[in-house]
């Protein structure tokens, strides 16, 4: 049991894809204008990650070594297509907001990286928890960054006004440069926090 909890903990803390490994940064910067979009993107990527991890783990003994990468890509692309269609059908507004970044989950190095480094070698249950852990880590990072930007850029979180009328939003945080600056500041904070926690 503890191995599974370790997997999830590792995904969120030690090997957090965004804060520690700096993987899959395109959606991290691209969709984090609002906390809701960050959450939606994080959950969509988590779903693809879990499904592809499980499927690749099931077939890990049948996939020939030499052509494994194209196979991984096809598996991931199929799940991305499914998630894209599900979002378009049930959350059309969110789907429009995320735009090109939903299909771009397919080229997210984080997902291919987990398939190659973990799912193609480990049993199914472990691959599931690994996908869940890494996906949650990604979601936490996205929501943290998006909330940070939304507070500074609009004075709201999840569309709830928390700063009141006295606060004058910093428009630049809602614009593209704000994404880079906010991620820089957040990475600094996380570095300090992790140093306190003793994770290096």
């Amino acid at each position, binding site marked *: 049991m503890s191995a599974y909890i370790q997997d999830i903990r590792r995904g969120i803390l030690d090997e957090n894809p965004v804060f520690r490994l700096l*993987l899959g940064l395109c959606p991290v910067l691209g969709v984090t204008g609002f906390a809701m979009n960050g959450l939606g993107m994080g959950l969509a990527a988590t779903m693809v990650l879990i499904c592809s991890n499980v499927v690749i783990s099931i077939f890990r003994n049948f996939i020939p070594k030499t052509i494994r990468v194209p196979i991984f890509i096809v598996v991931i692309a199929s799940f991305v297509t499914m998630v894209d269609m599900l979002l378009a059908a049930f959350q059309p507004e969110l789907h429009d907001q995320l735009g090109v970044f939903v*299909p771009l989950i397919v080229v997210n190095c984080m997902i291919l990286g987990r398939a190659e480094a973990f799912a193609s070698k480990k049993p199914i249950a472990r691959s599931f928890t690994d996908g869940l852990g890494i996906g949650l880590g990604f979601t936490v990072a996205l929501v943290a960054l998006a909330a940070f930007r939304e507070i500074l850029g609009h004075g709201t979180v999840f569309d709830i006004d928390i700063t009141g009328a006295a606060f004058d939003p910093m428009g630049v945080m809602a614009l593209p440069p704000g994404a880079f600056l906010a991620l820089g500041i957040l990475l600094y904070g996380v570095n300090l926090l992790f140093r306190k926690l003793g994770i290096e």
Partner: protein
Amino acid sequence: MGFEEIMAIIFIYIFVENLVLNQFLGICPFVGVSRKMETAIGMSMAVLFVMTVAILVTWLIYNYLLEPFNLQFLEIVSFILVIASLVQLVEIMMRKISPALYQGLGIFLPLITTNCAIMGAALLAVTQEGFPFLTSIVFAIASAVGFAIALILMAAIRERMELVDLPRGISNSVVTMVTAGLLSLAFMGFEGVVTL
């Protein structure tokens, strides 16, 4: 398509809607290979080459294969497969035809498969904007040049920052992000200069 429109597209996609600094595509190579000027130039050339060919091929596939047969739902799977095999093909051909160029670009080509700049630009031009054929090619070249400018600027800055003593907690990635933010802020000055 008139001359003016071509110039407008070139200007917009190099400066105003810069692929990296404005649309957040291709951040991985932007962060990953911007340590040294030589690698940045190599990567830029490889992207310019692959992006043009990739958009050309995906445009043909989308407009002559997927759309007539109502197979648009296959766009993600087909585009990524086309791009991945294209990169392989280009690599093999280059090794035979021009070993010198292969020496220069060789190591960057496999990396391009998971470069979201290529896939993102293809999706933007072919399916979202629905550009005509010639416009798509101009778009591809302009986007790749915009990517190259951002990457090379970044490499020039990072080469100078390499030996700087950083305070505790400020890692290289923090510096990279803030630098990118300032670059992006500078590029925002082009907003509204040209409209289509």
